[in-house]
């Protein structure tokens, strides 16, 4: 049997977080009643003209800088002509020959823990364009309704080179891109509302062959789980076709989540001739070096740089540093925790954030939304990705472990209470749950003396060299202290007494 190599390139549409549309002043807020956010420009009345929203350009510049791409000093908007009822002008304003960003790359991470490795996926280009409206085919008096609220919403279409070699790599790329656009604040990343959607170009070729196979494009993947499923199905389908002697024909396909299959929508033969040409209503987009520098100065620390800093400054492993910088919210949360808890406790902070905070947020089933955005609770109304324990509280909790006030086990209990209960002060929770360790030497000694007196047999066994007996004695002391004794202190005192 032949071995096959999978080749995947992704085209991603990220909806830009601007206040208004890319060529009109209408709002882009999600969920308004149909056509309430459609101005004369959006519905393409005769005589109206587009005016470029500079906020959208700003987003493109941020992205170009974040992926280390080239930002074109002069790029051109072009018309992509085709007829569809939710495309009011009969053309989409996009960029064709001269896109605003070209080149650059995105680091993706594959594997877990010490097995983790990085791969750089190169980008072909990123260009600005407007979204179309929506056709509502269901429940509209038996006809198709048109909602133009979304028409003119600004998009950045980000095109990767065909450098992914498995569905896992494709998903890792999509997740890294998803995190990055949110990190730099240009996209809200909401996949359910369509703010971030991917098309995957998939082909296979015999291992070792240089030329690409014929690709098919899977359209509109709006979840990472579907992306994985769709690519896996498509790859297997293509391999089967070829092995059974049928050639792959270039086509656009859709993924049906119910059947788990991809199905051809249209073939290349009925592809449109879009008759691209420069839009004469818009001047070429000129971006000065000064503007780029202004944006660069205001850009937040990027994930790669922050990851390197965490490794160097806090001695974190590459995997931990990568996990903490997988989303801006998580990274910010960790940074604030360390700021309060102190650098010397950074590793402990990292463990808590990675193991406890993340586990509570993800609940293990978050593959559709990738890394949690990790916004903190504000005004007592936690959002979907809310961390319900503030960085300050977590830092205080960690401080209470290191100063011996509570045990690690006690801290876990306190954390659960802080997460699920009312928003209380850390010390209040410790008190309320009675988690404070018995650090008063006199009271502890008294308990130890009583335990030693009542367990003469264990004492004897210990002295005869049975280590197990010692653990039993510690257990008895802990029990007698109702768990409030500091186990470490108990051990030390016991050893002193038995040795003396």
């Amino acid at each position: 049997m032949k071995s096959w190599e999978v080749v995947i390139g992704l085209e991603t549409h990220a909806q830009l977080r601007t206040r208004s549309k890319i060529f009109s002043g209408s709002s882009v807020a999600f969920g308004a009643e149909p056509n309430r956010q459609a101005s004369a420009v959006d519905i393409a009345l005769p005589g109206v003209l587009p005016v470029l929203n500079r906020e959208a350009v700003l987003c493109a510049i941020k992205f170009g800088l974040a992926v280390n791409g080239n930002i074109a000093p002069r790029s051109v908007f072009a018309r992509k002509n085709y007829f569809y009822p939710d495309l009011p002008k009969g053309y989409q304003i996009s960029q064709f020959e001269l896109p605003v960003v070209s080149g650059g790359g995105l680091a993706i991470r594959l594997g877990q823990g010490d097995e983790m490795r990085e791969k750089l996926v190169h980008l072909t280009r990123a260009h600005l364009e407007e979204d179309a409206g929506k056709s509502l085919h269901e429940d509209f008096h038996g006809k198709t309704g048109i909602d133009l609220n979304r028409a003119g919403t600004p998009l950045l279409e980000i095109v990767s080179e065909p450098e992914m070699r498995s569905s896992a790599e494709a998903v890792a790329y999509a997740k890294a891109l998803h995190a990055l656009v949110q990190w730099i604040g240009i996209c809200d990343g909401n996949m359910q509302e369509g703010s971030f959607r991917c098309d995957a170009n998939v082909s296979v070729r015999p291992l070792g062959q240089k030329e690409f196979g014929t690709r098919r494009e899977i359209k509109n993947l709006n979840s990472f789980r579907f992306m994985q499923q769709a690519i896996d199905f498509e790859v297997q389908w293509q391999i089967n076709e070829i092995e059974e002697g049928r050639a792959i024909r270039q086509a656009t396909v859709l993924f049906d989540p119910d059947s788990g299959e991809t199905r051809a929508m249209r073939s290349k033969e009925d592809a449109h001739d879009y008759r691209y040409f420069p839009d004469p209503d818009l001047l070429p987009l000129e971006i000065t070096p000064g503007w780029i520098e202004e944006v660069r100065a205001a850009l937040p620390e990027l994930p790669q740089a922050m990851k390197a800093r965490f490794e160097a400054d806090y001695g974190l492993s590459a995997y931990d540093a990568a996990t903490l910088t997988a989303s801006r919210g998580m990274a910010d949360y960790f940074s604030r925790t360390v700021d309060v808890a102190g650098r010397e406790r950074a590793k402990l902070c990292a463990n808590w954030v990675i193991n406890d905070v993340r586990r509570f947020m993800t609940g293990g089933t978050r593959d559709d939304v990738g890394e949690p955005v990790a916004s903190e609770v504000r005004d007592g109304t936690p959002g979907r990705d809310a961390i319900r324990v503030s960085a300050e509280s977590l830092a205080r909790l960690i401080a209470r472990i290191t100063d011996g006030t509570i045990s690690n086990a006690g801290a876990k209990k306190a954390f659960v209470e802080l997460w699920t209960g009312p928003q209380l002060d850390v010390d209040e929770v410790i008190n309320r749950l009675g988690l404070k360790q018995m650090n008063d030497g006199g009271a502890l000694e008294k308990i130890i003396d009583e335990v030693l007196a009542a367990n003469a047999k264990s004492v004897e066994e210990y002295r005869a060299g049975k280590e197990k007996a010692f653990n039993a004695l510690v257990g008895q002391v802990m029990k007698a202290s109702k768990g409030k004794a500091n186990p470490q202190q108990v051990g030390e005192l016991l050893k002193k007494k038995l040795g003396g």
Partner: protein
Amino acid sequence: MINASLKQLAAALAEKRISAVELATLFLDRIERLNPALNAFITIDREKTLAQARAVDVSGKLGAGDTAQRSLLAGIPLAHKDIFCTEGWRTTCGSKMLANFVSPYDAHVVEKLAAAGMVTLGKLNMDEFAMGSSNETSYFGAVKNPWDRARVPGGSSGGSAAAIAARLAPAVTGTDTGGSIRQPAALCGLTGLKPTYGVVSRYGMIAFASSLDQAGPMAKSAEDCALLLTAMAGFDSRDSTSLERPAEDYSRELEKPLSGLKIGLPKEFFGEGMEPDVRAAVDAALAEYRKLGATTVEVSLPNSALSVPAYYVIAPAEASSNLSRFDGVRYGYRAPEYSDLADMYSKTRAQGFGAEVKRRILIGSYVLSHGYYDAYYLQAQKIRRLIAADFSAAFGECDVIMGPTAPSVAFAFGAKSADPVQMYLSDIYTISTNLAGLPGMSLPCGFGQGGLPVGLQIIGRWFDEARMLNAAHQYQRVTDWHTRLPEGVQ
């Protein structure tokens, strides 16, 4: 009153010798009487017009004297080419496609002239989507030339030209993509100006070819055009191609003497193709200019022969895309019966557009299609740059360029409608200025065959409208061609 200049009308209004309502009524009555034979108007609405006039009468905008042009034009009626979206008015663009379209908003030009207090008399007939040089492509029927009703008024602003010639309005708006202001101005004996591209906002002007379209005034004289242009021009943030420049008073140079003015005469404009009667009138006008102190010098525009072919690639290409929005989905005409979406599109557009519009959509789609784009569209854009460079070089030797506006006087209905190329050649002298983005104007300079008007074209440097208007006004001070009236108009 119907022959009065805009300044004279303003004075009459300021001195309360007439009210805005009376003035509007006077022209509405003329329209009612004369328009049926001329077909210059597509829409009139007496009530709306009079309500607007009444509002101006009580607004206090009248009688503000000589403070600013804005108040100077208050109360003066004007009519808009039906390409300008006018709130509450039917705006058809001369097409069945928009025969029932009532605009919910005002074009920038409409807004500015209304803000100046001008009163809308109605909407003027035009070639469908401004595609034509004879007004024969209008869905609402051809406009008749007031000088000879068997002849065309020119196009596409034929309704605008006929309305001024027949004194149905003291001022009108027009648009010019390849000569659509200047050619009908020439054929109907009036003065019209196409400004530098970007001087007047295109917002609300239904697009034909976006990189060429420009709105401008048409009136009885250069002096009137200067006043109108001053009110129409200005930066508009809603049009990305609108130029941010300080406001200009286009009347400021009208009275300057012409001594020292260097007039360039492109040898390519004076060769074959120009009818002898047109040549005689233009030559006489140039002699008059020399008497006024100007000198003439021969210049060359070597690529002007390429202007018509380049134009008929670029303009249809842009139009084919601009007209895609007329799809029967949201407004305008929709075919009454269709089987599915594709059928709805094709029936709607087949029935809603006339033959010339369809021809240009086909040409435009063809030149933009995959595999032909480089050979046609890109090539035409290169020619466009060559033509602009020709003008730049010519203006190194002269201040303004003069020549004929159109190769012949008004032709008979049907004379060219069977041969599109012959029709396209009507704009041979005007198209190159659109390709270069230059300002151009036409003014009456005599009469040719059949006693029909001949137009003299003046082309200026970019943003040199004031100087062109000065040259035109000085000529009109010593000639009376622009005051002549067609028979039966008075």
